[in-house]
């Protein structure tokens, strides 16, 4: 009996054609271009039609009990361009490599902005592939697979509740990472962040750090991985930048529609997030693979809610979110299910607790716990093109909603230049 430790790149390729799409983003997020390898320029386009949005046009998407922000915009009804990204990576010399990446981010009223996700330089120590690596610059976090996966690489068109509720969907920040990179199945390290990524803030009273470890192994046709992480952040007057955080005004509503001004409640707090994740899959015959993945994250927060009108309330929160995702891949088809649950245990204290809690969306709905169930069918039409259909039973609000989605994803390399080095 032989247990083999497998790097992420091989893990992806070993999983068969259905994981072709899963490879590039993971590769470009944290993979190290090899010496002599041509410059890689990779692109992604993902577009989806959805039957409904979880909120109306002039409503704010605040899952009851959650402290949301970042780029966690609600999905839109109709056709939306969920993601466009271009990422490049180049090995400069024996010990140095660089990455650049830009991607669209959702915005208000269906508008999107383009942001720099990666602009980093890496240093490989001790061998051409590590094991020790130092990354410096703007980059996505490595501590949780939840954060390095774009929607285009997930089996689902909507991000997980863990990503949306706890991290505002994306995590890209300036920082430094020191880590043991995919050595004997292990990756482990620590990251220090400036604090520009939700849920932290930057400045003297902000910032964040994390530590993580994960382990991948295979036994015959069985492949498995497990990991854990801890993230700690400080936030000072953190706004929900989706709707607030700057100059406030009431949206201009269409005739006959009502729009209200966003309350712009701020958080000044210390928060700890702890998570574990695991997955296992087994090959069945030559063309099928069945697996299950799951993640759990716990938030502990203590601080104050406040607004521009000198209202304050103390807040403590113990929250967790969990998802479990079984899936079956057969030839070019994948069927995946995802069950998610978000549980908040919040305590707000102070004369303004009710007002601020309501404005921040921090109040749970009486007798209701947010849940969401998703069933997806993915068809790998071409090696770089995938079609998706999805059914979502969204119970994050007490008056739940069923919606449907149909989409297509293209991912591939624009070109592989021959290295001039």
């Amino acid at each position, binding site marked *: *009996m032989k*247990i083999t430790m497998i790097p992420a790149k091989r893990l992806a390729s070993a999983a068969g054609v259905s994981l072709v799409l899963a490879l590039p983003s993971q590769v470009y997020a944290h993979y190290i271009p090899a010496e002599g390898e041509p410059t890689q320029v990779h692109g992604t386009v993902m577009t989806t039609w959805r039957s409904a949005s979880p909120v109306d046009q002039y409503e704010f998407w605040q899952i*009851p*009990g959650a402290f949301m922000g970042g780029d966690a915009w609600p999905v839109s009804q109709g056709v939306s361009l969920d993601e466009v990204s271009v990422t490049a990576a180049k090995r400069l010399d024996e010990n140095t490599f660089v990455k650049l990446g830009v991607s669209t981010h959702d915005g208000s009223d269906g508008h999107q902005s383009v942001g720099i996700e990666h602009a980093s330089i890496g240093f490989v120590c001790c061998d051409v592939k590590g094991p020790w690596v130092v990354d410096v610059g703007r980059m996505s976090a490595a501590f949780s697979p939840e954060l390095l996966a774009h929607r285009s690489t997930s089996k689902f068109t909507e991000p997980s509740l863990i990503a949306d509720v706890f991290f505002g969907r994306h995590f890209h920040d300036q920082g430094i990472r020191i880590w043991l990179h995919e050595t004997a199945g292990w990756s482990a390290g620590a990251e220090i962040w400036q604090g520009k990524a939700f849920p932290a803030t930057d400045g003297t009273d902000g910032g964040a750090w994390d530590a993580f470890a994960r382990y991948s*192994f295979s*036994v*015959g046709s*069985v492949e*498995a991985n*497990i990991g854990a992480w801890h993230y700690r952040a400080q936030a000072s007057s953190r706004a929900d930048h989706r709707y607030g955080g700057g100059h406030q*005004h*009431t949206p*201009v*509503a269409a*005739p*006959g529609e*009502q*729009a209200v*001004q966003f309350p712009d409640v701020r958080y000044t707090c210390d928060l700890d997030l*702890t998570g*574990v994740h*695991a997955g*296992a899959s*087994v090959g069945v015959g030559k063309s099928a693979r069945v697996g299950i993945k*799951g993640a*759990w994250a*716990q938030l502990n927060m203590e601080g104050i809610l406040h607004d521009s*009108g*000198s*209202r*304050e*309330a103390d807040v403590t929160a*113990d929250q*967790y979110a*969990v998802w479990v995702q079984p899936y079956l891949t057969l030839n070019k088809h994948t069927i995946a299910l995802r069950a998610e649950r*978000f*549980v*908040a*245990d*919040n*305590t*707000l*204290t*102070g*004369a*303004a*607790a*009710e*007002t*601020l*809690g309501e404005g921040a969306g*921090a*109040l*749970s*709905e009486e*007798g*209701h*716990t*947010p849940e969401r169930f998703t069933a997806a069918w993915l068809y790998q039409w071409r090696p770089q093109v995938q079609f998706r259909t999805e059914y979502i039973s969204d119970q994050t609000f007490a008056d739940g909603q069923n919606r449907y989605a149909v989409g297509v994803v293209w991912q591939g390399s624009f070109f592989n230049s021959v290295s001039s080095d």
Partner: protein
Amino acid sequence: MFAVFRINVTGLFALVAAALFLSGCQTESQTFVDDAGARESAFDWRVPASVPLPYEPDDNPMTEEKFQLGRHLFYDARLSVNGEISCSSCHEQARAFSDGVQHPLGATGEVHPRNSQSLTNAAYFNNLTWGNPALATIEQQVMLPLFGESPIEHGINESNFEQVLMSIQADETYLRLYAAAFPEQEEPLLGELAWDNSVKAIASFVRGMTSFDSAFDRGEMSESAKRGEALFNSERLECFHCHDGYNFSDATIDRGVTFLEPLFHNTGLYNIDGMGAYPDPNTGRHEVTGNPDHMGQFRTPSLRNVAVTAPYNHDGSVATLEDVIRNYAAGGRVIASGENAGDGRISPYKDGVLVSFQITDAEVSDLVAFLESLTDDAFLTDPRFSNPWRAD
């Protein structure tokens, strides 16, 4: 092979289960809210749940008995030097407790330089009167019209206060009302205590004048009013920056607010010397502080019931809401001739948020319709706030 896999997978789920257990997981979402007594009061404030309660002074907590005593005093002309005026002389219920004239007259005929303010939701202001940052309580404010000498309003002073008090003491209705309002006192209508109690009672009545039942509150606005609301909240007009919140004033304080810096604004109404001066004695906050930078600064009035409180601005010098809007649209007021001639648009003390904007006649009508939707008709006719002597 499978034995190893089983061990590893078993270990994996055991780890997850252990983590969930160790987290002390709550299985259902809940939010516990402790408002530290913010909704507790011995008084029925009659405000909707969405509106926070106002502060009550520690030395004058609200009671229905004090409110009713204050109501009687508010409408009683005996509380003046010559029995000519009461508080209600300048604060009529049908006009949201303003008086409809540019400058009110005191008991002795002296003209007040300021326009009578509406008392709507006075409990929610962090400072009272138009421009005095030192007047933080209604109790302090009540003293001014009763005992003030510049200008003389009620005209009560050291030479006549005993006579005024005797007229009150002689009324059995008051003996009953004072006893009910101050049950812990043996002689609540005697000596200096009587004046202290009277001020507290009048303040309680004024503090209890809450108004949150307009068409806007009920969501029953006309289409024109809805368009006006959108204009009001637009970046073009910027009205909402000063007239914000549930009371439409940035000078609003309630139990949820820990501290509110007194806010005053110069709206470019005057510029009589080309350097931003306002005509004496109406120089606003500057009149109290003497600070040149405070020239022409006045507290933002609430817009609730504003449609029935004409004329407008601190000196009642603007006749209609349409004119108020057009002054803002111009970025200030230009007075072409007369002793107050000047271009308020270029006042160096004008608030930075006041910039000119273009607005059509139809949009002015919509904006006025929105302001009219803030009228609480029930408040204007509620017997609870009416003259009790007339009922008696």
